[in-house]
């Protein structure tokens, strides 16, 4: 079924075929031309597909079977934390008290929902070492934007208007410079040293009274923990800047180290990564932003407060950057993350991170003989290899990724981070068993052998998919985005 190419619903259409079994019309029929002015009448045919019910059901079932997600198999897409989404989260989020509420209901009728928001704020604060969270941002980059707006508002409040620049490492996620630019900062890049961390001398040189802050992912996109974080925090703080923690890789540190203790002033978390809420297909996501005490007044409003046995929305926050999302964020996603935290507890969350790090290091050790490992040191929750050895045989990392499709895997992230040539980044997550990891490792070893002995197996991959190698350049240059009859 996977292999068969599915026709478009328009191509399955047969004129006159329909699923409608309507009762006889019991009012007088009138011509549409008598009721609607000519100007508004359609001149062409509607071009809607005509199919029987079973054809429609099969068509969409086939499409759903071609989808690949964490429920269908191993999904080692580095930097994305494609962990399993426990079904109990879904059950909990569908409880009537969460599902059938309206955002305009009176506070006293939704005390349970407010309590959940309040407690999630406290849990996330405890996990990250921060003093308060806003659960409004709807995605990681949205959290970045809110966090940077807070940094900007803080400096402006202090009359510190010269701080117009944000420092971002050369290994950063592309969203970091993009978010900084969106908020109106100029972006300055700091390079990495040979161990994959921030180059301390380069950072010192960049610091000035124009620097509003530094954005850092720790562990970074190489899957490496920056051991100099204390020093980095000191350098930035001494120069009057703030530290922003990109929580994309927080799955490596839960219960072990906290951004707040490392010296970060602002963090965002991705509930759809670290806290097991659905990720692909639009999620929807959730990117809460948390801050240290001095920045709490700037958080988006409203925040949920508790006083005298009652939870309530606090709108009286004059320094707030304002709302960043309609209502209170993606509420049902927050419910799922809350369920995850409560299911695992503090010890469980620590074990999540330990297993995520162990799994990545297991893959690293098993594969480093077969694929170049540019930074050969203990990694965190993900490991970055390079396909450079395979280049000798005329195959690239893209070909390795395409060949993985033939074995039924979602390929890892490729060509990122940009500072590693022919990079591929593997993030197994904690929810995969040793058996699953071993199967993947064996396939990767097989592919390394093919690259050397029968490179055409990679160059012609994939062969087991509904469509073969796609012309990605042409798809990007001249995309065909809609069906046209006779095309």
């Amino acid at each position, binding site marked *: 079924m996977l292999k068969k190419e599915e026709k478009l619903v328009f191509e399955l259409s047969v004129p006159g075929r329909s699923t409608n079994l309507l009762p006889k019309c019991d009012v007088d029929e009138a011509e549409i031309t008598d009721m609607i002015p000519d100007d508004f009448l359609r001149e062409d045919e509607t071009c809607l597909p005509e199919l029987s019910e079973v054809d429609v059901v099969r068509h969409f079932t086939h499409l759903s079977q071609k989808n690949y997600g964490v429920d269908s198999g191993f999904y080692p897409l580095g930097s994305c934390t494609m962990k399993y989404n426990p079904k109990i989260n879904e059950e909990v989020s569908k409880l009537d008290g969460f599902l059938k509420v309206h955002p305009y209901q009176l506070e006293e009728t939704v005390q349970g929902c407010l309590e959940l928001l309040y407690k999630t704020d406290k849990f996330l604060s405890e996990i990250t070492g921060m003093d308060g969270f806003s659960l409004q941002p709807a995605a990681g980059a949205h959290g970045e934007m809110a966090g940077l707006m807070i940094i900007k508002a803080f400096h402006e409040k202090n009359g510190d208007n010269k701080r117009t620049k944000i420092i971002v490492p050369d290994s950063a996620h592309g969203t970091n410079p993009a978010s900084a630019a969106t908020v109106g900062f100029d972006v300055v890049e700091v390079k990495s040293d040979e161990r994959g961390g921030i180059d301390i001398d380069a950072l010192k040189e960049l610091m000035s009274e124009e620097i509003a802050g530094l954005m850092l992912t720790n562990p970074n996109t190489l899957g490496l923990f920056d051991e100099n974080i204390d020093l980095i925090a000191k350098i930035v703080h001494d120069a009057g800047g703030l530290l922003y923690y990109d929580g994309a890789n927080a799955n490596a540190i839960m219960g072990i180290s906290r951004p707040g203790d490392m010296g970060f002033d602002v963090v965002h978390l991705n509930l759809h990564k670290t806290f097991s809420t659905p990720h692909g297909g639009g999620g929807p996501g959730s990117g809460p932003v948390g801050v240290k005490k001095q920045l709490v007044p700037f958080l988006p409003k409203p925040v949920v407060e508790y006083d005298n046995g009652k939870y309530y929305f606090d709108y009286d926050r004059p320094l707030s950057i304002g709302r960043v999302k309609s209502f209170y964020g993606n509420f049902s996603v927050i419910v799922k993350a809350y369920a995850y935290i409560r299911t695992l507890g503090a010890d469980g969350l620590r074990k999540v991170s330990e297993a995520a790090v162990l799994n990545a290091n297991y893959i690293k050790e098993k594969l480093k003989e077969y694929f170049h490992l540019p930074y050969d040191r203990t990694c965190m929750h993900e490991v970055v290899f390079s396909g450079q050895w395979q280049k000798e045989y005329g195959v690239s990392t893209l070909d390795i990724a395409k060949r993985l499709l033939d074995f039924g895997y979602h390929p890892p992230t*490729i060509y*990122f981070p940009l500072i590693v040539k022919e990079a591929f980044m593997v993030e197994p997550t904690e929810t995969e068993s040793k058996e699953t990891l071993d199967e993947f490792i064996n396939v990767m070893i097989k592919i390394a052998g093919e690259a050397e002995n029968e490179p055409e197996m990679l160059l012609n991959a994939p062969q087991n998919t509904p469509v073969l190698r796609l012309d*990605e350049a042409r798809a990007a*240059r001249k995309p065909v985005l809609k069906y046209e009859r006779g095309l």
Partner: protein
Amino acid sequence: MKVLEELKYSKEHEWVKIDGNKAYIGITDHAQHSLGDIVFVEIPEVGTELNKGDVLGVVESVKAASDVYTPVSGKIIEVNEDLTDSPENINEDPYGSWIAVIEISDMSETEELMDANDYERFCQEEE
């Protein structure tokens, strides 16, 4: 990797063709090769004043988006509009596909650029 004798080169893999006080700027064969198929080019606006090292444009391939930096300071006097519709020109003919022409404000900056031999050696060292 192709290198042309008559051009100058930057460490960021731009090439410069100097014609009087005008500089034609594009990206090298090495650069287009490591980027892969280019699918989009963002060209600058005529009249923009740039300092050496400022972002001149962006080239986006199926792998990544990269900034193109100007190796010389000056004012943009002409841009290659063809690249908007045909970004693949850079892959097919990197040295024929200049991105912009700059009126050089400080000729001494051109002396810091590499010649063909130096650039070739620079690329080998970077590998």
